[in-house]
């Protein structure tokens, strides 16, 4: 029983951490129509900045400032937002699949920089011994994880609330107007460049926050955590849950993460040992299959978009 609860807590921590990144992507894709295919890159920026800011000092590696957890979270968001601003200024003239290709390339570049810039990122070894604030405050793994879950729920709820506030507003209306018809929005006085950039930066800040919470939980960061499969997972979560619906984003994160972890478990139990090495590929295929089936059968996701977004424009 304790085992089940422990696992459930562990599962929820990761699912909710991922859901924050999904919220960020939802702002970009769901509401604004920005095809960000570089989610993993911005999560990585947040994760490494968290590790550098809060981790212990170490030889021959930059950082290890030992700053408080909360400072790390804020720093990670700021850094991811700044990275997004730079990327955004360069790429926001690109639309649709062009933006997707550009952001995908940027994410791969970020991952390769993490892999090779040893002085800052620790190279292939990554950065270890990142303090988890729950460790200092509770005894035993279950209590510690439960406490961390509380932190994640708290931060996640705050993020969710902020996203709901800014989306159900005149600002959110502008995002949707840009998504629906950018030229028409411009002809009605809206500045598409500014709106796209704001949406992109805020969405990426959520991804950075997600990366930081992840590192704070597992205690280390390594470049292999930010392969393109992560972007793929986040996208599937959004499509399954329902694009342009924040509740859908969270629901999708929980469901898809459940499928992912369950499939990993099932594969490890049922698949013959000779082909266990291909387990990861099988999981990726499964996620791809879910994505395709969802797009074919229920393209609006489990909870689709609400037609009226802003809270003062309802009937």
């Amino acid at each position, binding site marked *: 029983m304790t085992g089940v609860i422990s696992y459930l807590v562990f599962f929820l921590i990761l699912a909710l951490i991922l859901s924050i990144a999904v919220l960020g992507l939802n702002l970009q894709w769901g509401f604004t129509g920005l095809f960000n295919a570089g989610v993993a890159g911005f999560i990585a920026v947040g994760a490494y900045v968290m590790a550098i800011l809060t981790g212990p000092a170490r030889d021959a590696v930059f950082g290890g400032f030992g700053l408080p957890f909360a400072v790390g979270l804020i720093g990670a968001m700021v850094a991811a937002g700044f990275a997004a601003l730079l990327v955004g200024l360069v790429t926001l003239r690109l639309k649709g699949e062009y933006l997707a290709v550009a952001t995908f390339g940027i994410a791969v570049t970020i991952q390769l920089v993490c892999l090779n810039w040893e002085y800052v990122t620790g190279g292939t070894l990554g950065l270890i011994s990142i303090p988890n604030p729950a460790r200092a405050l509770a005894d035993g793994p279950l209590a510690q994880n439960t406490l961390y879950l509380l932190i994640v729920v708290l931060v996640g709820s705050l993020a969710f609330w902020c996203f709901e506030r*800014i989306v159900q*507003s*005149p600002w959110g209306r502008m995002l*949707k107007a840009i998504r*629906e018809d950018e030229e028409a929005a*411009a*002809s*009605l006085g809206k500045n598409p460049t500014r709106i796209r950039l704001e949406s992109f930066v*805020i969405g990426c800040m959520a991804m950075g926050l997600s990366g930081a919470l992840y590192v704070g939980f597992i205690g280390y960061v390594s470049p292999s955590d930010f392969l393109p499969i992560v972007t793929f997972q986040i996208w599937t979560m959004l499509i399954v849950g329902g694009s342009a619906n924040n509740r859908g984003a969270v629901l999708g994160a929980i469901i898809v993460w459940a499928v992912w972890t369950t499939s990993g478990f099932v594969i490890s139990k049922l698949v013959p040992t000779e082909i266990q090495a291909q387990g990861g590929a099988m999981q990726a295929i499964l996620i791809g299959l879910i994505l395709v089936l969802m797009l074919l059968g229920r393209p609006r996701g489990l909870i689709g978009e609400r037609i009226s977004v802003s809270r*003062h424009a309802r009937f």
Partner: protein
Amino acid sequence: MAKHAVMANKESQPVLRLSGVSKSFGGFTAVDNVSFDLPNGAIGGLIGPNGAGKTTLFNTLAGMIEADSGQVVLGETPIHDLPPHQIFTAGLARTFQIPRPFQEMTVLENVMTVPASQAGEQFWNNILRPRKVAREEQANREQALSIIDFCDLTRVRGDAAASLSGGQLKLLELARVLMADPKVILLDEPAAGINPSLMVTLVDKIVELNKRGYTFLIIEHNMEVVMSICDPIMVMAQGKLIYRGDAEGARRDPAVLDAYLGDLP
């Protein structure tokens, strides 16, 4: 709904002045050195055979296409160098020949999106100053609902724009631009593709709005509409402005007759 106070002595002042506006695509001159004034409070009609350059001229005025040369002055403000969103906030609004609503938004939200500089358009105000945003939104909503009512869209105000009929979309286009209380409204073929009774309604609305002080410039192929409500009438052919004057004169002008009748076999 907001109204312009039209001063009697200002009525003949031009509100929109074009001088030497030209636009070429490769070797093809779509708009060729077009100059005219539109008096404040007028309903100007822009007519001409297909391919005369009317819509290109509209796109140039609205900033969606950059002119090769020429000046456009709205009131006292030169607008030919501004991007589309700034031209709109300066007071020149346009509708599209084929309506371009925000499909997955309600009629009310389509209209409420329009007003410029809403406090809630700064995302942080929605978190830090929700009361101010709520107050503005309430006023915005009331104004939007009264414009929606004026445009006979009350029945569908909560529906997605995607579900509207062609005629309703034309009215929605009008409703959106009215929301900004513009100095000049460019209507691109408002009567095209709608049924005759709605056309009468639409013409009535334009005349009514004009009485309230709105200035219009209308591209229209329906000569009955143009001849009955438009003055002055500008005629374009092959990119050039070949006539500017009243309806009577247009009917008798040899160049105009040639431009239209010359097309016939």
